[in-house]
């Protein structure tokens, strides 16, 4: 659910059509951002002290000095395995430790030796291994360049915007001084945050007020900033979460992109405002190279992007006849912590994904059913309502795996409890779902009602696990239950305790088919500044300011751990979160929060999920139908069609909207929605294999076209279509009243097949396709093999043992290949006992072969192969199935001459076996 805070206020006031921008800070209203942004380029006071250089096996260290204030910084340079460079800058001798993000990296990144290639008074050249890759440290002003041969890949501090506000004691501030500084000092560039002028009297350093909230800032100014230049780059992506296009825009003349997890009520589209989650990872791409920058900082962060290839820049080039290399400049600004940057050097998109996954881990491998259809609403009112919805799916023969319960299921918004009158017998309800082999998700938010009679609260209080306010008392804020405390999830003991609350004997009325949804974990605090926690709230040694963007990450982490522990480590968890950070992919799924039933929101769901997929979080979806407001029937149908082809497929609706279960819009629309859901279920084997692949390799599931066609510049800004894995191209209809769409089919000399008609189309063309309300334009890549299950049942569990159909789409060279992954669908036995089937299917030389990709694995399934459909085939005279033991049998087949489709009837062999089929 999550109509947050402001929703709550707006409700009282009866206003609010869209986001109230006044509730959220602009850069101008954020003191550190304003200070930092006021800095001028080209005046860097930082100088590298080359004689302090120390080289060890794993790193190079070097001191920097700010010539304006003589503060020394320590620069650490690492060459990491897998073609990455890590750059860390901290104060040499900080007054007290500065925050470094814990728990996000899956391990200390393994290093490789750096060596000094050359060195003089102007700088040092370090080798980053072979291929003439060098890291050049320039002394004055300090600057880093990463080069490969003659080519500069990326430069740091090339514009001189490195700024490190060192910790300082608070000077005696007389009342007079305070008044003076607050009232009369103009904010100007000379008060640069790099300490260019040590004016501690300027406003916003030791206290800052936004609306009615005052941030006490006991540590004073602590912000950091660094700029990066990317020569030859015109396209950058990532840094979710923003409701914006895939390709990031220049922020010149506007606000930077903001990363600060916030509960934004009725967010607006196409702007850089912060949303619920933050992944400070930016990808750059051009036809030659893809790279990534991981700004490893969990404090409030702003990202400026500028480019010399804006319209103005280009016109200038044209007029001057110049051929200036395109360049994109990035500048990161964070409120606290240290500078810690991972530079992922690619060079291919897949390399960047691998590099990033080696740092923060891959997508968790969810239970298969989590990939199926989810039916949610704020709220299913009571057990009877749940029963009726469950039955509705059966009555209309629509598959569904999960029914969800939002906050109203609890006893007075006390999570882990059930409303005694509406949900008096949760076990019975869950058994009803189990009887239909369906499951349930119930919400558990991190705000805990302050109520001494509530077990969760009293334990948190007695164990002293709550976040504290600046005065040391338990922090309390207003949220759904009224006054609430917030567990300090940063503490391992809090997380362990939280996880233990999911044990079946602790969480009464829970069973193994009950999973969890973490909402409001930005955290949302209705009466807090910007609807979130006060920055001067205290987590042990750290301020909330230091780690704000990590809070939601930890909530999901602890919850997922709870679900694992309750099954004694046997069952895979499924946890949905709204807030997230780098690494959140390890704990479950995310969704794009409280969107609206508008066509533009349907459209934006694609780039929002694409950008999340680019930075590791593959399990992404948007509320189908739109959360706020009520969709037209056409929009609802189109949203189901689009959602069926996005990783997380859940319909959800605000409490104040009319009901919209799939069967409520007349038989025709019920049939359309049903068909979209059926298509999802038929493709579940492919989805499952994609998720396994993502889990194994870190490759995204939803991919912008340029990921697979990195040299095709026409795809670089495309975000109305995408690839699922490598082999399905999806171009959902997102225009009202559409009569046709133009899909771009990439790949010179390649072919694509319409998955519905099997019509073959050539690659490297814009293809106009007429559409009707039933159309979901999807194409299968020629050269691929996709496993499907065509017997759609009421839930994915019911389909477990059903036979497979393989769709073999031949390339112009008459080849194809694909993978198949099968396991029990819900336990960890695939990794603890290697109980799975992973096979490669290959078509070449008129032979389709199934080969085991994991010889040491073992899993048996009753599933068999009922059908093989070969697209772009010629009519064979004979088709022979040959098993591993040499047994041969002749197969029946049908051939559709018009479409060149060969269907092999009932080959019948077990899907886990070795076999080949020969077309003669």
């Amino acid at each position, binding site marked *: 659910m999550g109509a947050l805070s402001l929703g709550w206020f707006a409700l009282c006031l009866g206003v609010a059509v869209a986001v109230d921008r006044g509730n959220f800070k602009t850069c101008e209203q954020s003191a550190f951002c304003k200070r930092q942004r006021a800095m001028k380029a080209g005046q860097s006071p930082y100088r590298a002290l080359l004689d302090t250089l120390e080289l060890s096996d794993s790193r190079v260290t070097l001191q920097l000095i700010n010539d304006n204030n003589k503060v020394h910084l320590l620069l650490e340079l690492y060459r990491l395995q897998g073609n990455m460079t890590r750059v860390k800058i901290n104060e040499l001798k900080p007054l007290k430790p500065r925050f470094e993000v814990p728990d996000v990296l899956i391990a200390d990144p393994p290093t490789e030796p750096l060596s000094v290639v050359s060195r003089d008074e102007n700088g040092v050249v370090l080798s980053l291994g072979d291929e003439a890759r060098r890291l050049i440290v320039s002394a004055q002003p300090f600057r880093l360049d990463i080069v490969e041969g003659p080519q500069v890949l990326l430069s740091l501090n090339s514009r001189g915007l490195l700024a490190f506000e060192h910790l300082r004691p608070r000077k005696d501030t007389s009342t007079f001084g305070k008044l003076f500084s607050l009232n009369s000092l103009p904010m100007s560039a000379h008060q640069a945050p790099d300490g260019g002028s040590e004016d501690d009297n300027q406003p916003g350093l030791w206290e800052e007020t936004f609306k009615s909230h005052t941030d006490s800032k006991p540590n004073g100014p602590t912000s950091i900033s660094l700029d990066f230049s990317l020569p030859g780059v015109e396209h950058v992506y990532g840094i979710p979460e923003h409701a914006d296009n895939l390709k990031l825009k220049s922020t010149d003349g506007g606000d930077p992109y903001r990363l600060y997890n916030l509960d934004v009520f009725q967010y607006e589209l196409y702007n850089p405002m912060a949303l619920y989650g933050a992944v400070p990872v930016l990808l750059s791409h051009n036809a030659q190279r893809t790279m990534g920058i991981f700004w490893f900082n969990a404090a409030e962060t702003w990202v400026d992007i500028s480019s010399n290839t804006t319209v103005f820049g280009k016109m200038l080039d044209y007029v001057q006849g110049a051929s200036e290399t395109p360049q994109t400049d990035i500048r990161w600004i964070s409120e606290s912590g240290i500078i810690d940057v991972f530079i992922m050097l690619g060079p291919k998109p897949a390399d960047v994904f691998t590099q990033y996954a080696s740092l923060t881990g891959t997508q968790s491998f969810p239970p298969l059913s989590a990939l199926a259809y989810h039916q949610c609403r704020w709220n299913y009112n009571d057990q009877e309502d749940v029963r009726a919805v469950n039955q509705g799916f059966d009555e209309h023969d629509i598959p569904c795996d999960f029914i969800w319960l939002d906050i109203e299921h609890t006893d007075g918004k006390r999570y882990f409890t059930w409303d005694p009158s509406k949900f008096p017998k949760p076990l019975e309800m869950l058994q009803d779902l189990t009887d239909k082999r369906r499951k349930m998700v119930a919400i558990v938010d991190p705000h805990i009602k302050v109520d001494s009679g509530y077990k969760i609260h009293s334990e948190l209080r007695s164990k002293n696990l709550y976040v504290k306010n600046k005065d040391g008392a338990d922090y309390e804020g207003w949220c759904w239950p009224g006054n609430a405390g917030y567990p300090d999830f940063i503490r391992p003991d809090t997380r362990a305790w939280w996880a233990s609350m999911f044990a079946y004997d602790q969480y009464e009325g829970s069973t193994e088919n009950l999973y969890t949804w973490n909402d409001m974990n930005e955290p949302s605090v209705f009466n807090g500044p910007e609807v979130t926690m006060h920055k001067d709230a205290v987590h042990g040694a750290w301020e909330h300011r230091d780690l704000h963007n990590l809070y939601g990450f930890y909530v999901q982490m602890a919850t997922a751990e709870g679900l694992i522990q309750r099954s004694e480590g046997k069952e895979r968890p499924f946890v949905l979160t709204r807030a997230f950070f780098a690494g959140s992919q390890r704990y479950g799924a995310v969704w794009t929060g409280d969107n609206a039933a508008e066509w533009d929101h349907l459209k934006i769901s694609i780039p929002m999920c694409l950008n999340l997929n680019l930075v590791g979080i593959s399990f992404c979806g948007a509320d189908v139908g739109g959360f706020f407001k009520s969709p037209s029937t056409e929009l609802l149908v189109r949203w189901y069609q689009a959602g069926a082809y996005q990783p997380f497929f859940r319909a959800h609706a*605000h409490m*104040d909207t009319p*009901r919209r279960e799939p069967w409520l819009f007349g038989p025709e629309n019920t049939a359309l929605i049903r068909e979209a859901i059926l298509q999802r279920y038929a493709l579940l084997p492919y989805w499952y294999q994609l998720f396994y692949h993502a889990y194994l390799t870190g490759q995204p599931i939803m991919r912008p076209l340029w990921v697979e066609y990195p040299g095709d510049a026409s795809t670089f800004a495309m975000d109305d279509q995408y690839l699922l894995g490598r082999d399905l191209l999806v171009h959902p209809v997102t225009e009202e009243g559409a009569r046709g769409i133009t899909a771009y089919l990439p790949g010179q000399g390649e072919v694509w097949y319409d998955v519905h008609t099997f019509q073959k189309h050539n690659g490297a063309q814009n293809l106009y396709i007429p559409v009707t309300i039933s159309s979901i334009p999807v194409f299968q890549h020629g050269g691929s093999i996709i496993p499907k299950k065509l*017997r759609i049942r*009421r839930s994915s569990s019911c389909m477990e043992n059903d036979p497979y159909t393989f769709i073999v789409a031949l390339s112009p060279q008459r080849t194809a290949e694909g993978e198949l992954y099968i396991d029990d669908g819900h336990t960890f036995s695939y990794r603890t006992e290697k109980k799975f089937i992973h096979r490669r299917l290959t078509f070449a030389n008129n032979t389709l072969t199934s080969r085991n990709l994991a010889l040491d694995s073992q899993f048996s399934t009753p599933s068999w192969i009922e059908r093989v459909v070969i697209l772009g085939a010629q009519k064979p005279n004979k088709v022979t199935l040959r098993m591993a033991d040499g047994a041969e049998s002749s197969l029946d087949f049908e051939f559709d001459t018009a479409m060149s489709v060969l269907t092999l009837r009932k080959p019948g062999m077990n899907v886990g076996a070795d076999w080949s089929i020969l077309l003669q």
Partner: protein
Amino acid sequence: MQHNVNWLQALLVLSLSVTLGWTVEVQRPRGVPLTKRQFYDEAKPFTCLDGSRTIPFDRVNDDYCDCKDGSDEPGTAACPNGSFHCTNAGYRPTFIPSSRINDGICDCCDGTDEYNSGASCQNTCKELGRKEREALQKLAEITKEGFLLKQQLIEEAKKGQQEKQSRLSELQDSRKGHEDKVEALRTVKETAEQPEKEAKERHLKAWEEHKAALRLEKEKAKMAEVFLELDDNADGFVDVSELQTHQELDPDGDGTLTDTEAQGLLGGAHKVDSTEFMNMWSNMKEKYVSEVCPPTPSSYDSSHDEQKDSTSDKDQERDLDKDPDSVYPEDDLDEDAAGEDDEDDDDDDDHQVSLLFCIATPFIQPHHIFLSQQYICVCVYQRQYKIFMYTLSTVSSVCERERWCLLCNAALLPFSFRALEKEISFDFGPSSEFAYLYSQCYELTTNEYIYRLCPFNRVSQKPKYGGSETSLGSWGSWSGPEDNKYSVMKYEHGMGCWQGPNRSTTVKLTCGKETAVVSTSEPSRCEYLMEFTTPAVCLEPPNIDTQVHDEF
């Protein structure tokens, strides 16, 4: 209800097929109903039931879908659009989608759908059949009784309808005359408002004349009424004996109106006709006490002051020119609780009697004009048209102010006319069996709220522990499916929801002996659902005796 009857019929078919099924074991492919058995002949190739192709018989139920219509796989899950027949001996035979075969869930009560999934299904058909028979039996009893009640309702409605129709035509007759008068008064009012003094005086005079004329007319009407009252034997004459029923006319105050005295009052004649009576009337009108105007009950002791208070209250003064309906905010009607409605009905006759004198019409329906114990009259007062609210008691005193009576009557007539017309215009069902619900209200109390359904009027919700009432919709229409229109009522345009539609309520009617709201829910934020039982939807029960007979 239709549904339930079908069940009964289905049961009949079932009980026959049960017998057949036990006696003759019919061989047929899995999942094929008896009725389609002849299409599945092992000795012949199988032709898909849609005729699309013919396949060897060994491809029937071979777990691969060959026919587009799914007919070759009646017993497997191979076809996406196939269906499986459960015999369900002891219960109702049924078809389930092929996708439910061997999915690990028992769908057929005989368990035949799970022949190869490892699910162990109990045969529950007999138990289900027994329960269903019991339920149907019970339902049949309710239906039977309910249907009898419904016949009574139809009878009552018929009577009520006739009554209302005749009232309406009477009202229609008198309406024209009243409208003319009101029009005249309207003119007076308009002119009376001319600011110029001269004009004002001129119109004042006109007004006085008009008033005199009205008074005269009223006088005549009154006299005519009295004449009719006195003319007990309706021979067109008032005679001495008839006059003697009014002892109050006794001129010498000895308490007895003698023959002579009576004759004196009649101008010495033994009997007089209506024209002659007119001349005598002035002699007796001071003393005459009407037979119809009731004595003021002692409980109606509110003072005139109260009336003055209310008339001087600006909030209660409204311009007659406004549409009368708009004058009364509907929410004002909320005051009377359901329990009082019955009383109101009992009181209706009294109200009408007191008003009869006052406004000379018995046709006032209180629904839209009279709030609980409060009446609204539109009257002339100080040369302006005003609407006054009267308590019941003050109406009596108003009655005595003859000069107001006609005006009040004239003003009220359109309301009563409209109210009656409205009531008559309601669709109370094919036989007006729902008419008895009109002006009634039914309540249901849940954990949090008291829900209130006033059929053909409105639905509302009130927090149990204080708080204001919320309208969940006003009467909209019958909105059941085409073949059963009177099974669902729709109430619309209730209070608006934040970012949502206006509240609305769907009322589902089911057959029951009682008339009651049995459940309420809010399936969607602003959309309420009520279940309401009433005999009015009970259908004629099928001949159950035959049914039961077949069982044995």
